């Protein structure tokens, strides 16, 4: 399979979006769903073909280094001064890896949604949006230049907005979708400014040109400084802000928990596995440039580490299972960012980059699985709250097993996928600094704790009243994706990831460093044991602990009041104080000027309206006098 087939993986979802969006309502729901799923299956097969061809064909290796391939590159806009925006397809290791991740998860979600969304109003619309999202996300990862990436960045934002607001009759869904869109737009503003800065100083948007000689480009922009940092640093930091907004990094994370208002498969696809890692992908894509601005990498490390701890603590106190998973996602993405931030080529052959991408890959699989399981549970229990669940292991065995696998994977227990990637991240962090290493290990322990708290609360604990209807495993379209993803989560760790994705395309052999791995396993086990003690059977111990640490618990439950701070800043300060002055100006000066114009016009009209009497004879008179005046002028001039 030639790499140029990759264009089909973009065009097919786009076509499905148009088809289902325009004509979906004309076809039966089932036909629309199956059509969308089949198209996605074809897309998946081609994406796999392209990725595998790229990874395994030796013609793309030069001196043991895998070269990025420009499959298509057409000029789209010419901006002058040699600056042009292209549209095309660029395949390199991370793009190929993302092709696999996106198509796999998207395929699973398409299949799963056939069952989950069965009978919903707007089923066809849902599949159209899924296709739009898949198209945008694939377009994002194969972008040849940063501007194309920005365009698709916005498009995934739009499709995320559409899907969060899928139940547009629910107020909470509408406000959640607006919140997500506005917060990520706000971050994208930073991204856009970063792009402009970069293009201004580098004269190109093209990734390949930028990456071919990042050092000289960064140095050429280093002369201009602002607040002590060079223009290149500012540009890259702003681009990171865009990525942080999309990837829900502290303090721009506030939209992600609310985004859980969308249908659960959407949360699995967009808000766990694919779109939220777009920020990580963006930084990874620009990584060779970031290497020349270590201060920005430090910023990324700190942001990632703080977010990881914050989200993990908040996740321990949430009671809505999707919120727990959302904060867990934030925490895990923060792991990826931290790994990128500490990656240096001189440290262990740039293991951080590889670890970050590896974790992105495995996390997509097990977090997608967790969300799909949560979807199955919510589908049965009709509630997001933990209190409505319990003892479900007896009713939903397949969901139980797959959920357990995912929990073990995220907790970092070998031999499941999460262990390997998380271990590589910890190795990379310890290489850079012991402080952040200990910090991240602690977060890993918390991860194990809150995931197993979730697990026990759902599948053990007590047995609420299920008398109105008994939960059971869902139909096959919903369980098959669970099983497939669980299998991937079991074996993904053994993929020799370093052979495929490294920061420079070279080879890297993963070997477990037991002096790092053993303590992290121990911490994870401790976390699991604590969760087991507290939550296996219904008891009052958790409540007592919560009340003994009342302030902390409440703060964590209220997400450390970050949303309230935002509300305070936007409503009280911006709307209340700044906007009042602007409003006064608008009402009195701007409107006043307009009113003055209107009043003058009105007065003039009143005074001259007698001319418009409607009496033809008056009109004739005026006309006649005018003609006479003209005649008089002519006479005086000629005679």
């Amino acid at each position, binding site marked *: 399979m030639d790499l140029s087939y990759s264009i089909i993986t973009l065009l097919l979802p786009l076509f499905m979006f148009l088809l289902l969006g325009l004509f979906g309502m004309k076809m039966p729901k089932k036909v629309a769903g199956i059509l969308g799923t089949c198209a996605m299956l074809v897309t998946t097969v081609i994406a796999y073909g392209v990725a595998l061809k790229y990874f395994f064909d030796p013609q793309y290796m030069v001196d043991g280094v895998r070269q990025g391939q420009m499959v298509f590159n057409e000029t789209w806009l010419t901006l002058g001064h040699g600056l042009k925006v292209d549209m095309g397809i660029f395949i390199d290791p991370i793009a190929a890896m993302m092709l696999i991740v996106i198509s796999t998860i998207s395929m699973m979600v398409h299949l799963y949604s056939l069952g989950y969304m069965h009978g919903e109003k707007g089923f066809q619309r849902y599949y159209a949006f899924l296709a739009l999202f898949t198209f945008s996300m694939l377009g994002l990862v194969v972008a040849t230049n940063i501007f194309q990436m920005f365009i698709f960045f916005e498009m995934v934002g739009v499709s995320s907005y559409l899907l969060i607001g899928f139940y547009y009759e629910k107020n909470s869904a509408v406000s959640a979708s607006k919140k997500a869109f506005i917060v990520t737009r706000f971050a994208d503003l930073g991204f856009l400014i970063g792009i402009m800065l970069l293009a201004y100083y580098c004269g190109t948007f093209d990734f390949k040109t930028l990456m071919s000689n990042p050092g000289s480009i960064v140095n050429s922009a280093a002369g201009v400084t602002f607040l002590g940092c060079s223009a290149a640093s500012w540009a890259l930091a702003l681009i990171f802000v865009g990525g942080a907004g999309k990837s829900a990094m502290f303090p721009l994370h506030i939209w992600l928990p609310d985004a859980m208002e969308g249908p659960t498969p959407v949360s699995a696809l967009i808000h766990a596995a694919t779109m939220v890692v777009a920020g990580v992908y963006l930084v990874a894509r620009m990584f060779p440039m970031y290497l020349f601005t270590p201060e920005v990498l430090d910023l990324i490390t700190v942001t990632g580490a703080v977010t990881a701890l914050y989200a993990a603590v908040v996740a321990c106190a949430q009671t809505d299972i999707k919120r727990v998973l959302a904060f867990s996602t934030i925490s895990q993405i923060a792991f990826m960012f931290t790994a990128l931030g500490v990656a240096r080529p001189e440290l262990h052959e740039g293991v951080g980059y590889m670890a970050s991408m590896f974790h992105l890959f495995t996390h997509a699989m097990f977090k997608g699985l967790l969300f799909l399981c949560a979807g199955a549970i919510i589908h049965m229990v009709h509630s997001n709250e933990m209190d409505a669940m319990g003892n479900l292991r007896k009713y939903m065995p397949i969901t139980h097993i797959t959920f357990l696998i995912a929990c073990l994977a995220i907790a970092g227990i070998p031999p499941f996928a999460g262990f390997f990637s998380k271990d590589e991240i910890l190795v990379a962090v310890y290489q850079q600094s012991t402080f952040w290493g200990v910090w991240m290990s602690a977060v890993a322990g918390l991860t194990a704790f809150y995931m197993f708290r979730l697990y026990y609360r759902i599948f053990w604990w007590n047995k609420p009243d299920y008398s109105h209807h008994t939960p059971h495993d869902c139909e096959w379209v919903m369980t098959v994706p669970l099983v497939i993803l669980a299998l991937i989560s079991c074996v993904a760790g053994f993929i020799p990831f370093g052979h495929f994705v490294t920061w420079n395309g070279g080879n890297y052999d993963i070997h477990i460093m037991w002096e790092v791995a053993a303590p992290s396993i121990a911490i994870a086990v401790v976390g699991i044991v604590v969760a087991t003690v507290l939550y296996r059977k219904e008891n009052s111990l958790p409540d007592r602990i919560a009340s003994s640490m009342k302030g902390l618990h409440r703060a964590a439950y209220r997400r450390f009041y970050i949303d309230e701070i935002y509300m305070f800043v936007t409503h009280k300060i911006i709307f209340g104080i700044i906007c009042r002055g602007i409003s006064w100006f608008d009402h009195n000066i701007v409107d006043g000027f307009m009113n003055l114009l209107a009043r003058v016009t009105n007065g003039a009209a009143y005074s001259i309206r007698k001319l418009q009497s*409607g*009496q033809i*004879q008056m009109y004739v*008179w005026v006309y*006649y006098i005018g003609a006479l005046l003209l005649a008089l002028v002519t006479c005086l001039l000629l005679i």
Partner: protein
Amino acid sequence: MELTVLYYLIPSLIMFGCGVYGFITRKNLIAILISLELMLNSVDINFVVFNRFLFPGQMEGMFFTLFAIAIAAAETALAIAIIINIFRVVKNVDVENLTKMKY
């Protein structure tokens, strides 16, 4: 006394002035039409006079007047048809009352 071109044009001019006065002051539509005929007639005279004094060997002015008379006849007939129709609708022919189609 020799009758120059001015002798013929002055009465025509006065006739035209009368037409203008009538057109502006009269209220009855038919009276307005009569004023219109006066103005038209004065213009006809002008054509003929200019033909006679400037180009005596040709007949353009005369023919123009001839056709103008024919057109005036047509126009008057149509105008009177309209006036009669208006009379049927509003029961008089005052120009100041014709406000039905204004709004």
